[in-house]
């Protein structure tokens, strides 16, 4: 395949969370719709109608209340169980179509179409199949590198004439530079708002400017990462397709509370849920952790309240993925740090020093290792079968105060027998 131009496609779901909500609510097909973040705080997904009304990404929902009432904008709480299921469906369809692919995020997938005949037809077929089978609209952008594929996807989304598919590789050199001159540098993958400002100082405003920027200056000012981005724009691949997700090196489970918490047992209760989720992830990837860290945070936006953000880590006596064992340490650490006069807004745990279970070193004094192995297996099986949180660690979820505010969540249409849609 030596000389062939790589044909990397980025398949990206349009307004993914909103599109998921619409799959089971055809009556909302043209209603302006948004999905809110945890605790119903900010807007994390917008339908085209909501975008047209001027609603911004990340905007706090309370700021939009008036606009919402005036135009009948509907808001949903995040329904992660639904989004994860529909995402898995989209990704499995794509993986059947192209053997080499990388699931990049919940709504994006890189697919290698190099050497495939009839690229145009394949791309449209891919888009149609995902649309028909899942109900989720997607756009396809094709380029010789990941960065250009991502940019091509941006073009496919913005320009209705593309009909959802845009192939950068099919352009002539002249067309390429014309296109890149018209796209602001901010749209390039990895160039954020901060970098855009700094690039502006060097009169680098469009993608074409960045592509042609003086290499030594760019490297001296912005470092190797920016140089990589430039090389990618010059059609030299620097970011490889990562086909297999590497096992996580750290697992963090944390959340902001629905309302502030000031009692130790409630904090410990919240932590036990985080421990349960993190340990289930560990067991899912067949590994165990050797260090646990617990952190507590007060609400840093409430300047009127006293602030306290402690964090404490402890090496575990031996690596483990046992929820009960880890939970004991989490509770203990929490107790050590806890001070009663503060109001806590967030807590979390981080598991690190993660290694595959087979690598465990034996310890003469470690006692009955993995005595809970079978118990954990049973726990995972039950929770997978009957829904997360069916079987819990003693205190886990006994208090409801800290849990997420999700007043506008849609039913678990695809993951809960009692919530499947009625027709």
């Amino acid at each position, binding site marked *: 395949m030596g000389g062939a131009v790589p044909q990397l496609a980025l398949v990206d779901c349009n307004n993914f969370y909103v599109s998921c909500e619409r799959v089971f609510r*055809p009556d909302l097909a043209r209603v302006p719709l948004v999905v809110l973040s945890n605790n119903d705080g900010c807007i994390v997904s917008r339908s085209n109608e909501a975008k047209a009304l001027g609603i911004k990404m990340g905007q706090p929902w309370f700021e939009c209340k008036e606009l919402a009432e005036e135009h009948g904008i509907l808001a949903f709480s995040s329904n992660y169980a639904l989004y994860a299921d529909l995402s898995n469906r989209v990704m499995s369809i794509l993986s059947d179509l192209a053997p080499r692919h990388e699931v990049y995020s919940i709504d994006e997938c890189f697919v290698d179409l190099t050497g495939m005949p009839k690229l145009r037809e394949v791309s449209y077929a891919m888009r149609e199949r995902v649309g028909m089978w*899942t109900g989720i609209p997607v756009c396809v952008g094709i380029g010789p590198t990941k960065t250009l594929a991502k940019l091509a996807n941006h073009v496919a989304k913005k320009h209705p004439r593309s009909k959802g598919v845009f192939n950068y590789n099919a352009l002539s050199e002249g067309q390429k530079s014309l296109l890149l001159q018209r796209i602001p540098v901010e749209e390039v993958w990895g160039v954020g708002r901060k970098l855009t400002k700094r690039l502006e100082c060097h009169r680098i405003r469009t993608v074409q400017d960045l592509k042609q920027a003086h290499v030594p200056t760019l490297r001296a000012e912005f470092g190797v990462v920016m140089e990589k981005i430039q090389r990618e724009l010059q059609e030299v691949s620097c970011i490889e397709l990562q086909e297999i997700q590497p096992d996580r090196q750290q697992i963090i489970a944390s959340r902001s509370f629905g309302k502030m918490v000031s009692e130790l047992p409630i904090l410990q209760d919240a932590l036990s849920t985080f421990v349960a989720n993190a340990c289930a992830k560990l067991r899912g990837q067949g590994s165990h952790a050797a260090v646990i860290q617990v952190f507590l945070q007060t609400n840093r936006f409430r300047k009127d309240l006293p602030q306290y953000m402690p964090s404490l880590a402890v090496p575990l006596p031996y690596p483990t993925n046992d929820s009960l064992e880890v939970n004991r340490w989490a509770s203990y650490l929490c107790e050590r740090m806890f001070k009663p006069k503060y109001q806590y807004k967030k807590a979390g745990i981080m598991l690190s020093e993660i290694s595959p279970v087979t690598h465990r070193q034996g310890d003469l004094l470690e006692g009955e290792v993995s005595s809970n192995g079978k118990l954990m297996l049973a726990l995972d099986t039950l929770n997978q079968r009957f829904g997360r949180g069916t079987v819990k660690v003693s205190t886990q979820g006994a208090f409801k105060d800290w849990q997420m505010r999700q007043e506008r969540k849609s039913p678990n249409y695809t993951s809960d027998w009692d919530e499947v849609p009625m027709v």
Partner: protein
Amino acid sequence: MKSAVLSHPEPVFIPEKKVWLEVCGWKVPAGFASPAADHTRKRIDLNEHLIRNGAATHIFKVKGDSMIDIGIYEGDALLIDRSIEPRHGNIVLAVLNNDFTVKRLHRRGGVIKLVPENPRYPTIVVKEEEEFSIWGVVTYNLHKLY
């Protein structure tokens, strides 16, 4: 966020359970191997038989009695496959003017009808100006008998 690592020796939890020391950590098989061992087969998996395309199949529950003559009752669970191209005569989940409905699809000579399986309900003729799409084709009805 300040972080401190507690070093050993820190408190050790003393398990309430007794710790048994084992002389030999594995079991030594003794006796005859099962004569059936070579003939084991995977048990029938209903998912494999009822679902031809997992990525495109969803479950819906039935409300109402418009399809009782072909044995689709209220509360039954329908398997609905979005990847099947709907054809004349299929039972489909249709979306008519933004509402879901399960009916038999009639499509002949440019006319689309949604036909109920209960004489008490009228056949719906889909008019050109109406918004109509087919969400998926019903492949199975799961009706609880016990």
